[in-house]
């Protein structure tokens, strides 16, 4: 259910007071944020409402065969504040150049039936809902004698987004999101080992107390296993990655390399070229149900949708925002995004100028069956549950990180836990070179959503593991 939205949101108010030549656009945001921070089972800090109202104003100015872009964000929507922001944007536009003469802003708001991005219970009573969520999250820990949450937080953001531009586009929508962080610690026991930890960090659209504690037993087990884990072996090994691990590797590199920004640097894949194993099909889906980056319109007002990036191993389309679509004479793809970093959006989106960004990167499931069947196909290798930080390099495509918790695979079965050492490789490289995508040997049959990635458990054969 959509909540009643302001009849005169910040973008419209600013737009009505702008006296400047077209083209221009205003992205407005009014957000309430609430946070519950806990230390063990004790709530140590209640925050909210954190009220932020701001806007990002962008003007486009043609200089010969190029376009200057001026952007200024502000939290001051008074008459004087708007004049100041406009002066700031105009001053910047005078110095800016981008290789296009064509800036086409959206002129009408498309409808967006059925896009679910708002948790109405969270919207209506945010702090009680968060407290209920935290209580439900902590409850499964109570009977455990060897595991507890050493700390954590839930942070809910309830936003009214409004967009207006000089082409007549005006639209607004509401959305919710919730960031969750929990450090689960395993301790005690006769073995005398130091404590182990599994660190959970994610973002969702909903705060559902009924599901809050579902994964606690699994998190506690990972923390227990971390206590007895040993370093993995070194070598070129088959590596199995569940969606939660792949989400830290794939979306960043794919989202950048399959974009107009890469095309501008002549480093985007050539359409039709083989860049992955034949079973690999990847798309960007801006309307993925409950996707943290799903919105009815992108942050420039263009309708979101689905874009094929890799089709049966071959490079397909690219992602564009307004400026890059102008540079290449192609339609925008609804991928103008603000404040995107490592797949997650800054909650203060208005403060960021839009650029091209992936929404939800969807790796289509394959025919590999269940996780157990994917593990069986690996034979002798490693299951990597969590990396320290894969931090993929979007330019070279290289990624890698420390194994925080994983499992040895022996004779097609999960065996003892492993931890420490590194696993790494290249997501996407020059034609003919082995990469994670070309070495993708098997895709499981069931997809899971992990932040801005949806995909199955995969087997990559091989990746480089540095261990004992």
């Amino acid at each position, binding site marked *: 259910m959509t909540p009643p939205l302001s009849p005169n949101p910040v973008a419209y108010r600013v737009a009505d007071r702008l006296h400047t030549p077209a083209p221009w656009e205003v992205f407005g945001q009014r957000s309430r944020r609430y946070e519950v921070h806990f*230390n063990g089972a004790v709530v140590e800090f209640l925050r909210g409402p954190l009220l932020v109202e701001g806007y990002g104003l962008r003007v486009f100015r043609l200089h010969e065969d190029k376009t200057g872009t001026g952007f200024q964000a502000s939290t001051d929507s008074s008459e004087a504040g708007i004049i100041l922001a406009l002066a700031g944007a105009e001053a910047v536009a005078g110095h800016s*150049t981008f290789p296009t003469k064509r800036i086409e802003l959206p002129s009408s708001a498309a409808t967006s039936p059925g896009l679910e991005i708002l948790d109405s219970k969270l919207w209506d009573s945010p702090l009680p809902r968060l407290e209920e969520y935290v209580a439900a999250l902590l409850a499964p820990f109570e009977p455990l004698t060897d595991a507890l949450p050493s700390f954590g937080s839930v942070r809910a953001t309830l936003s009214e987004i409004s967009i207006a531009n000089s082409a007549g586009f005006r639209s607004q929508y509401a959305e919710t999101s919730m960031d969750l962080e929990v450090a689960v*610690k395993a301790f005690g026991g006769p073995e005398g080992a130091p404590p182990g930890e599994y660190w959970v960090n994610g973002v969702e659209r909903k705060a559902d107390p009924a599901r809050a504690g579902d994964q606690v037993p699994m998190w506690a087990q990972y923390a227990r296993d971390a206590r007895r884990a040993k370093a993995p072996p070194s070598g070129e090994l088959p590596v199995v990655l569940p969606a939660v691990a792949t989400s830290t590797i794939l979306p960043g590199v794919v989202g950048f390399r399959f974009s107009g920004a890469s095309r501008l640097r002549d480093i985007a894949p050539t359409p039709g070229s083989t860049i992955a194993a034949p079973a690999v099909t990847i798309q960007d889906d801006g309307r993925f149900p409950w996707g943290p980056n799903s919105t009815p319109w992108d942050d420039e007002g263009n309708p979101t949708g689905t874009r094929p990036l890799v089709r049966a191993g071959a490079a397909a389309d690219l992602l564009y925002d307004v400026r890059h679509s102008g540079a290449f004479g192609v339609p925008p793809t609804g991928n103008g995004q603000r404040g995107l970093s490592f797949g997650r959006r800054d909650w203060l989106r208005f403060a960021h100028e839009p650029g091209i960004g992936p929404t939800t990167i969807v790796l289509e499931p394959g025919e590999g069956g269940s996780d157990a069947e994917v593990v069986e196909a690996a034979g002798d290798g490693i299951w990597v549950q969590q990396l320290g930080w894969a931090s993929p390099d979007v330019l070279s495509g290289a990624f*890698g990180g420390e194994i925080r918790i994983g499992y040895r695979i022996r004779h097609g079965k999960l065996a003892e836990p492993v931890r420490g050492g590194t696993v790494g490789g290249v997501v996407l490289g020059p034609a003919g070179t082995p990469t994670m995508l070309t070495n993708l040997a098997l895709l499981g049959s069931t997809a899971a959503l992990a932040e801005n990635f949806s995909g199955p458990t995969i087997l990559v054969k091989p990746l480089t593991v540095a261990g004992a």
Partner: protein
Amino acid sequence: MPDLRASENDLARILHRLERAASFADIMAESARGQSLRLDRRSTSPSSQPFFRGAAVRAWAGTRWVEAATTDLTAAGLDAAAESVERAVKASPARTPPPGPSSTTVAERMTDPPHPLSDLGMEGMIHLARDILGWASEVPTIKDTIVNMGWQDDERLYLNTAGARCYQRVTRARSSVVPLAIESGKVEFDFLGEGGLGGREQLDYLTEAKVKEVAESARELLTAGAPPTGTMTVLLDPGVAGIFAHESFGHGTEADQFVRDRSYLKPLLGQTVGPDFLTIVDNGAYPGGWGTIYFDDEGNPGQRTVLVDRGRFVGALHDRETATVLNARPTGNTRRADFVSRPFVRMTNTYVEPGDWKYEELVKEAKNGILLERATSGIEDPQGGQMQLKVKKGHVIQNGEQKGLVSSMALSGRVLDFLEAIRGVSSAKDFMIDPGTCGKGHSDTLPAGTGGAYLLSTAVVGPA
């Protein structure tokens, strides 16, 4: 925009109002401005920092902190925030006093660079950036270069009900150069970057020779070998040594991790953890440091805190609450990323103090191993005592000599093992502080300096 002191009467009135409801309250108001430039072969993208202005209003509610924040600094906006805080305080039945001592510091400090970067103006920055692009482009295979530079004034006014009043304006300047070498579908890069408190002088390192050197390095990375894998002798360059200090002893000594019983270091306080030539400090008062602050967000002065003193683990970083629990003093490390972010115990400039080795001596001492250069990222593991450091490039060390170039790597290992294996740190000649960004978890990012000199130890290395 008027400076924050113009709103001081309204802020003080709110504090006075909260004084009646809570045993302690404070306000941190913030206003930021600045300019930055991003230039590459195809585009010139100057930008203004957001006009971002607001205040966080916090009170002690007997058993916990409660807080509201607003971008509306009018009397009505501040009253609404205060009302939310009052409601939350009333909902808590306990009336115990707040933890630890409340700051009573009254002072004003401002960065006053002799040549502010703002004086250079956008045209001056574009002119310099085009020169840099031109120098880099003279190197074969460099198809593009991304040049970033900019400055920011971060103005903060802290007031509390104990009488503290701290006004500061911190001016930071920063730049980076990233030449992109592209050949046969392969993309590689190297980078230069510096930053700190101050102005134009922060860009003085951007000479033609330095830019061409880093462009050459990017070109060479196109044909660099894969790094060796496994446990080996590692020589960290000063930037990588800084990330080591930050990820191992920085995050591990943030005392909120002690209170949560989440730091592997907690039981080691007072013990010897490394060689007697190893000293690690956090220093919020480091002159010109990227992470330098005049006051923290509880009104305590930025200061130097020794964490490891000649091999012995002696100190931690505290806010008022952790200092109370652990019988210590606040160390000026309570920082908010901005006025909508919560205060936490955070680092400022964390570094390994220089030793007395020469670089050449460390290479000889290493005999066979790997030199890790150009830190790109790191991540802590306060509970497990591991660390991950990533670098853009390195050189193989063979028979005590620096040899072939290898591409990006990750270092992994148990911090205590790494400390025990440290064999030397180079002298002050090599010391530097890099401008970094630090998160608490994956959020609340703020400027943090990391530094050191060359450092020799042993760790697991793999590709990344």
